[in-house]
């Protein structure tokens, strides 16, 4: 069952610049595992060393945050779209805090 995962711009450098990745999965957790199997450089950015999803990684199934559904166990069906929502901070000036 093929579903689409949308990759936000800051993470595209780990997916060969591709903005959408198609995977076969029945749950959100499974879909993300397929994603990092295909693009291993993504793994450290999505998962902590203990194998849990990192707290700053937000995943939405269609327009709903999976944290308020059944998290990793949330079921997915063909046609569903998963979106990883990035933290981005850009706005105005040069980033003074990390110069």
């Amino acid at each position, binding site marked *: 069952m093929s579903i689409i995962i949308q990759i936000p711009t800051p993470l595209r450098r780990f997916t060969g610049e591709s903005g959408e990745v198609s995977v076969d999965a029945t749950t959100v957790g499974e879909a993300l595992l397929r994603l990092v199997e295909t693009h291993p*450089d993504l793994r450290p950015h999505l998962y902590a060393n203990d194998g849990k999803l990192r707290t700053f990684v937000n995943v939405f199934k269609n327009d709903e945050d999976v944290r308020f559904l059944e998290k990793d166990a949330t079921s997915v069906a063909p046609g569903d779209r998963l979106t990883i929502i990035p933290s981005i901070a*850009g706005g105005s000036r040069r980033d003074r*805090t990390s110069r």
Partner: protein
Amino acid sequence: MTAATLPESRATLPDLSAEEIRRYSRHLILPEVGTVGQRKLKAAKVLLVGTGGLGSPSGMYLAAAGVGTIGVVDFDVVDASNLHRQLLYGMRDIGRPKLEAAAARLHDINPNVRVVPHAVRLDSSNALDVLRDYDIVVDGTDNFPTRYLVNDACVLLGKPNVYGSIFRFEGQVSVFWGAKGPCYRCLFAEPPPPGLVPSCAEGGVLGVLPGIIGCLQANEAIKLIVGAGDPMIGRLLLFDALRLSFRELKLRKNPECPICSEHPTQTELVDYYEFCGVPTPEEAEQGDAEIDVTVQQLAGWLRRGDAVTVVDVRTDQEREIATIDGALHIPVQEIERRLGELDQAHRVVLFCHHGPRSTRATHLLRGAGFPKAYNLKGGIDEWSVAVDASVTRY
């Protein structure tokens, strides 16, 4: 819905002058705004945090719309690299404090607006005092510590935070208002580790993108003031400029949110640099004596013919603009798996545009058994300023 912090009674709203009535006539004939809405705009006090890419369009439209008081927080000066997106400024403003140039431009658009400058770097010691006098905060900052600071201060003061953020071709908009819905922390409980998300200075941004996102922020602020339409509370708008697509996601209040839930674990502002794991601006300015070398030191080593490998950790696009002759190119994200190309016995000097990426890469090398790994302080920009003027600055 009307912002709770805004004056609502018709009796207390300021009147419009004949000039204002003529100026705002296209607003006044809109049933959703009308005379009362325009008087609400005149009474409203909006704070712009940051007067750069996002603050430029939001500030100009809010001034044009007749928002009576616009506070502006900034401490930067106008740089040539601002002009591709920060339309508050022009050539004559280069080198001028942004606050001064912004106030002049906003006054020129609408002299009825009172512009209140706050020439401070917003931090935990001053944020509550600066924000307290305003009805609405428009967040157009560029870094995670200030984002969390603005959110938490808004939650503690009960004020709406009109959020906009951009990266490359991608933008986000929402209204975070802890008193009525989710806050920024309900969505982004913790910041990403330093370095994962490059800043716009490192990653680039399409000039028109902050124009689009900043206008959407102005739209949300105006809706909150006049009480028209559906504010973006509990919704996150994602904009992709390359596809030209808008998507909307539902946001929920996190019942365990440390700051806006019913039983918050945090009831005051904290140290947001520490929270985000980044150095304070002062620390970043000073650099890290342990790992830094100056451009003069490197120039001396190279002149003497010392064994030193110079590594450029920037992107291909940046190398097309300017390079340092003889440098080995290893993009920062590839350093870890290309350690084998470097010699642990020799000095390795890493550089990027200004220093943050090469600082991270240097720490990584030091941790991986390269005791002679150094960061070029000030990056290729400083190299151009102090050593080789033929290297193009960007």
